């Protein structure tokens, strides 16, 4: 068994458990890539690391905590410190960008939601977006880049210590990939103690 103290993300399926993937062990801090995350492994990782659903057939460590033995209260507190950044932004189609961005804060910390506008504008403008126009748009009228940016800003407002980023796909050097790398860099510049983990798609996995 490896020490968990300085680990941002650890996933170790038990031998013979039938779980997909191999051991993943990522130390806290900086940007990391987990290569070849197939369609079977991604939902398992998201359920274990983002939703912190307890597993008996794998050892899962998140931000130094063994999640298998975590009490419910500590699990809830830990969940607030991890975030998932989907390639498509993960926006709800019936909400505009502003409603999408402020949804989790409005739900978990309603008092904090009132003073978010300046922070949201600053984060959007950091990436050269016309904040006023973007915030009024529904996801269906946004470009893929705008959806991704809205998802990024929403993630940033949550102030997570561990971020799992979904591979945007496309060729190396494609604009989506450059944008994803820029998000990781901006996150780490503003939260130097944070950890950004990019889940790279398995190229041999047709279903992604």
């Amino acid at each position, binding site marked *: 068994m490896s020490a968990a103290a300085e680990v941002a993300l650890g996933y170790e399926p038990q031998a013979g458990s039938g779980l997909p993937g191999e051991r993943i062990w990522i130390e806290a801090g900086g940007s990391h890539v987990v290569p070849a995350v197939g369609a079977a492994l991604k939902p398992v990782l998201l359920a274990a690391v983002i939703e912190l659903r307890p597993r008996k057939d794998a050892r899962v460590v998140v931000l130094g905590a063994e999640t298998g033995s975590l009490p419910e209260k500590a699990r809830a507190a830990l969940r607030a410190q991890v975030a998932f950044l989907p390639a498509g932004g993960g926006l709800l189609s019936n909400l505009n960008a502003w409603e999408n961005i402020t949804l*989790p804060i409005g739900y978990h910390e309603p008092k904090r939601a009132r003073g978010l506008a300046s922070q949201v504008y600053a984060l959007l403008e950091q990436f050269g977006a016309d904040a006023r126009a973007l915030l009024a748009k529904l996801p269906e009228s946004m470009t893929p880049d705008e959806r991704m940016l809205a998802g990024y800003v929403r993630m940033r407002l949550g102030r997570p210590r561990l971020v799992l980023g979904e591979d945007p796909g496309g060729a190396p050097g494609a604009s989506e990939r450059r944008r994803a790398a820029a998000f990781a860099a901006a996150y780490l510049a503003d939260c130097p103690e944070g950890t950004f983990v990019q889940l790279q798609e398995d190229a041999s996995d047709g279903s992604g």
Partner: protein
Amino acid sequence: MIGVYRDIEGSMRLAGHVLRRFWVLKLPPVAEELVRQIYFTGASATTTIVIRGALIGTLIIAYVIEVLNADAALAVKLLLLVVLREIGPLIAAVLVIQRSGTAVATELALMKISGEVASLRHLRIDPQDYLVVPRVAGIALANTALTVYVQFIAVGGGMVLAALVIDASLEELAANFFLLASPLDVVYSVAKSLLFGAAIGVIACYYGLNPPGNSVNAVPKAAISAVTQATLAVMLLNVVFAYLVYGSALFGLFTADQ
């Protein structure tokens, strides 16, 4: 058969969740969803639903008066017993199932298939809190308001029609109606409409969140199941209410003056 039990159990669990977590309506994003649902089910549908409901209610009265050769007293009794207590809530509920039940089941099934429900979980938001509680509350409230509109217009329309076809003035019919009606009729209608609306909301949300598959084909199937089962639930609830009022000890409360 197992599927039927599973669906009933699932719907009951969802109803329990709504009751337990009703307080989430005070959270701003959930309250916004509630307002959206009330607007969609109630405000934006008022004209079409009320006109259709009132026409059906008035037609039923016209037929019944003709078939039974009713006099003023019977016409008023029909308006109270048939239109106000039974047809009004039932018509409003059926029209809400057609419009909002289908829309909610379709919307939620699409959200489930497109990964939006999973996105909510990733944001630590319980999809049942954010999607189900405001929809059930919104449909229940809007259904009650629509029922009142339908009753008002159907009873009014029925009275005007009755005044035209039988030997009684509109004033006489209205006076008889208000003499016969009691506050309990209002309580009965409101309780029934709230329960009908809540049942429609729970069933539509249950089938929407549990589509039979992960492809687009599952969406219309979820909508069809929601409409069928919500209609059945409303009919069953109506029978239970009818039994409570006409077939049990409560009968005396509603018939003491009649």
